[in-house]
């Protein structure tokens, strides 16, 4: 299975998934920990993928979304953005709205 197929399966089978460096408990990068904090504040259930444990995914995800950095958030299979966009949307109330519209489960 190619990295693209693996990624498509991950984003297709998880309503909310964050590709990040490290884990929610032990984020290994400031931007990843900011993204986790936002998701925790929203209180939504989410899956996470530690790209540091999987080089194929780490490179493949950047091509998949045509986005050069990690973390990357996907909701219902759609690329939402990195931690900067998550923050902008969170502060504008848009991320909360997006999660509500997507009817994702609470944590």
């Amino acid at each position, binding site marked *: 299975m190619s990295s693209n197929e693996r990624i498509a399966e991950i984003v297709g089978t998880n309503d909310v998934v964050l590709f990040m460096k490290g884990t929610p408990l032990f984020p290994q990068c*400031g931007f990843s920990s900011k993204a986790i904090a936002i998701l925790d504040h929203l209180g939504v259930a989410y899956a996470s993928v530690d790209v540091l444990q999987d080089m194929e995914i780490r490179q493949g995800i950047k091509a998949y979304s045509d*986005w*050069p*950095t990690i973390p990357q958030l996907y909701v219902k299979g759609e690329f*939402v*953005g990195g931690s*900067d*966009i998550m923050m*902008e949307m969170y502060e504008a109330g848009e991320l909360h709205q997006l999660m509500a519209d997507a009817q994702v489960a609470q944590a």
Partner: protein
Amino acid sequence: MAMPAGEIEALIRAAIPDAEVTITDLAGDGDHYAAHVIAASFAGLSRVARHKAVYGALGTRMGGVLHALQVTTGVPT
């Protein structure tokens, strides 16, 4: 690996000619910057599209020679 702030600003301006660019050095190590980019040409573009325009200006440097760039965008008010 590091990059001077002026070079980041110049690259963004070259790709987005009407941009007003403010670069902030977050860590003093030449590797962690914030870029605030205001451009009329951003009007109507999604956040992802705006950020992609800024990342696109930096080409392969993003995630390579430049480890971290915090991007915020806007349109002139």
